[in-house]
C-alpha cells in the first residue's frame, strides 16, 4: 500500500520522456560544435570583408571589422585586370583554362573508370585479378616518382605544356582510385540482376548503359565531386605540365598573390582566392545531399 501512495505523489510517467535542454551533455556538445564552426568560419569571414574593402581601409589594420564602404573594385580587378608576368587580364584566363581542363578530364576519367569497374566487378575475364592488383598498386605509387617520366612522355607525344597533356595526366591519375570506387559499388549490385539482363539478351554495353548506369547515379555523383574538386584544386600538375598561357586558375592565383612587384593588394588577393574557390564550393553546395547519399549507398541492402 505504501507503494501506491509513493506513486501518487510523483507524476505517473506517460508519453515521451521529458528532456532537459540545458543538460551538461548538451552544453558540451553544442559548445564544442560552435567553437569548431567559428574556427572554420572566421578565416572565410575575414577574406570576404577584406575583399570588399578599399586599400586605405585595410591599412588601418582592423581585419575583423566590416567594411565601412563596400567596394567591388577588388573583385573586378582580380577577375579582369590583375597582372601575372606579362599578362594583365586577371584570373579570367586561368578560369577558362581550368574549365577546359576540368570538364574533359572529369568526363574521360569517369567514363573509363566506370567501365573498368563494371568489367572487373561483373565480367570475370581472364587476368581480372592481376589487372586489379596492378591498379590498386597504382593507387599507392607516389606521384613524385612519375613526374619526370611523364614529362618525357608528353614531350614525345607533342602535348607537353598544352591543355590536352594536362587532361591526359589528370585522367591517368584519377583512374586507380575511381576504378576501385566503381568496382566496389558495382559488386554491391545483386548478381542476379546482371544474370537476368544476360538472359534477356543484353550484351556488355547494353547491360552497362541500360541496367548498371541508371542504378548507379549516386556513385557517379560522388565521382564527379571528387574529380571536379580534385582537378580544379590541383596545383602541382598544373605548374609542371603547363606554361603561362595555359596555366590553370590555381597556378595563376599563386602568381597573383605571390607577385613581388608593387604593393600587396590584400583585397585583390582575397577576392582572387575566393573566386578560385567558388567552383568547388558551388559543387559541394549543389550536390551536398547527393554526396552524403552516395557515400552510404549500397552499405545496406534496400
Amino acid at each position, binding site marked *: 500500500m505504501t507503494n501506491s501512495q509513493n506513486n501518487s505523489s510523483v507524476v505517473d510517467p506517460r508519453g515521451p520522456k521529458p528532456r532537459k535542454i540545458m543538460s551538461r551533455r548538451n552544453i558540451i556538445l553544442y559548445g564544442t560544435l560552435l567553437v569548431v564552426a567559428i574556427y572554420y568560419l572566421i578565416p572565410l569571414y575575414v577574406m570576404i570583408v577584406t575583399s570588399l574593402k578599399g586599400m586605405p581601409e585595410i591599412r588601418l589594420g582592423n581585419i575583423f571589422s566590416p567594411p565601412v564602404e563596400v567596394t567591388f573594385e577588388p573583385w573586378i580587378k582580380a577577375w579582369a585586370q590583375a597582372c601575372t608576368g606579362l599578362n594583365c587580364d586577371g584570373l579570367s584566363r586561368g578560369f577558362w583554362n581550368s574549365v577546359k581542363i576540368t570538364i574533359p578530364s572529369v568526363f574521360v576519367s569517369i567514363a573509363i573508370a566506370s567501365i573498368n569497374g563494371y568489367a572487373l566487378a561483373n565480367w570475370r575475364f581472364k587476368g581480372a585479378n592481376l589487372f586489379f592488383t596492378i591498379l590498386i598498386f597504382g593507387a599507392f605509387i607516389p606521384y613524385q616518382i612519375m613526374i619526370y617520366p611523364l614529362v618525357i612522355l608528353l614531350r614525345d607525344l607533342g602535348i607537353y605544356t598544352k591543355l590536352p597533356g594536362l587532361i591526359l595526366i589528370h585522367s591517368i591519375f584519377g583512374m586507380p582510385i575511381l576504378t576501385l570506387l566503381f568496382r566496389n559499388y558495382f559488386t554491391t549490385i545483386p548478381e542476379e540482376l546482371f544474370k537476368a*539482363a*544476360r*538472359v*534477356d*539478351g*543484353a550484351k556488355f554495353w547494353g547491360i552497362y548503359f541500360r541496367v548498371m548506369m541508371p542504378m548507379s547515379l549516386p556513385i557517379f555523383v560522388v565521382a564527379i565531386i571528387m574529380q571536379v574538386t580534385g582537378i580544379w584544386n590541383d596545383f602541382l600538375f598544373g605548374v609542371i605540365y603547363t606554361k603561362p598561357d595555359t596555366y590553370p586558375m590555381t597556378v595563376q592565383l599563386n602568381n597573383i598573390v605571390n607577385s613581388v612587384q608593387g604593393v600587396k593588394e590584400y583585397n585583390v588577393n582575397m577576392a582572387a582566392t575566393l573566386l578560385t574557390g567558388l567552383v568547388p564550393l558551388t559543387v559541394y553546395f549543389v550536390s551536398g545531399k547527393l554526396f552524403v547519399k552516395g557515400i552510404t549507398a549500397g552499405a545496406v541492402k534496400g
Partner: protein
Amino acid sequence: MNSIEINNLSLNFGDVKVLKDLNLSVNKGEFLVLLGASGCGKSTLLNCIAGLLEINDGQIYINNQNVTWFEPSERGIGMVFQSYALYPQMSVKGNLSFSLKNAKLSKDEIEKRVKHASEILQIESLLDRKPAALSGGQRQRVAIGRALVRDVEVFLFDEPLSNLDAKLRTELRVEIKRLHQKLDNTMIYVTHDQIEAMTLADRIAIMRDGLIQQLDTPKIIYSNPVNKYVAGFIGSPGMNFLKGKILQDGKPIFKLEGGWCESPDLSNYKFQETIKVEKEVWLGIRPESVVVGGEAENMPVNFNLEIEVFEPMGADTLVWSQIGGQEFRFMVDVNTSINVGGTLTVGFDPAHASIFDLESEERL
C-alpha cells in the same frame, strides 16, 4: 523427345568440384523439380543450363540443339530468380519488354506480347509502376512475366517463392502449376521446400553434393527411396530409422539392436536382392504409415509403446517414443486421447517399410 539433355556435365569453382559428371534428361513439357539441401549445387546446375556459368566439361542440349557454347539469350530459356531481379529503374512494362527490345522485335509485336503475358499473370493494372511500388507477390509475378514474354521452350526457376510469406507461397505455387498446365513448357524448378517439390513436380531429382541421387515421380520417391539420404530428405516429419539385423528363421525377420520383443516378419517386403544372413540394416518406417489403436491390431506387426513427448500439429499429433532405446515417431489423430507416460498400441506393415544397408545406405 527430350527437351533438355545434359551429358557428363562437370563444373568446378577453382578446386571445388561442385557438379561431377552429371547426366540428366528432361522430357518435353515436363515439370522437373531439383530438390536438395543448401549448397548441393542446384543453382549451379540451373546456371549451367542457362549458360550463365562456364562449364568445365560435358554437353548441354536444348531442343535437340547443342547449346553448350551458346549465349544465355540464344538458348531458348527464360529464367526466374529468387530475388526477383527486376530492373529497379524501369517500369513493369519496361521490365517485361527489355528482352524483346534487345531482340529488336517490332513495336506492335512487343506491345502484343506484353499484353498477353500481363493478362495471364493479372498484372495489367501494374504496368506503369516501378518495382519498388509492388508487393513481393506482384514482383515475382512480373519476374515470371519477363520469362513469359520471351516465348521460350524452357523455363528455369531458382527458388522463386522462397522470399514470400507462407500464404502467398501456396497461392503462387498453384498459379505456377496452372501456368504450366496452360503453356505446356518444359520447366525446371529449384527448391528446397519438399512440399513445393511434391505438389508441382512430374518428376523430382534429389541432389546431394553435386550428384543426382534419385530421379523419379514424387510418388515413387516417397514410397521407394533409393537410399537412406533420400528417404530422410523426403517426408515431414522424417522417416524413422531402426538399426538392426536381418535373421533367417524360415523367413526373413528383423532383429532390433538393443532388443525388442517383436521381430517383424519381412517376407512381404520386396527385396531387390537376396539378403545374406545377419546383414546389418536400417529399417525405415514413415511416421504416417504407423497406425494406432484398433487398426493397429490388424497390422502384421503391432506392439505397445510408452509416450515420451507429443506435439499437436493441428489435424494430427506427432508422438515421440522409443523402441529398444531407438527413437520412434508416429502420427495419431488429434482426437486420440494421449498423455505423457501413457501407452498406445501401434502397428505397421513391413511391406510398406524401406530397408537400407547399414554401410552403403542403399535400398535393399
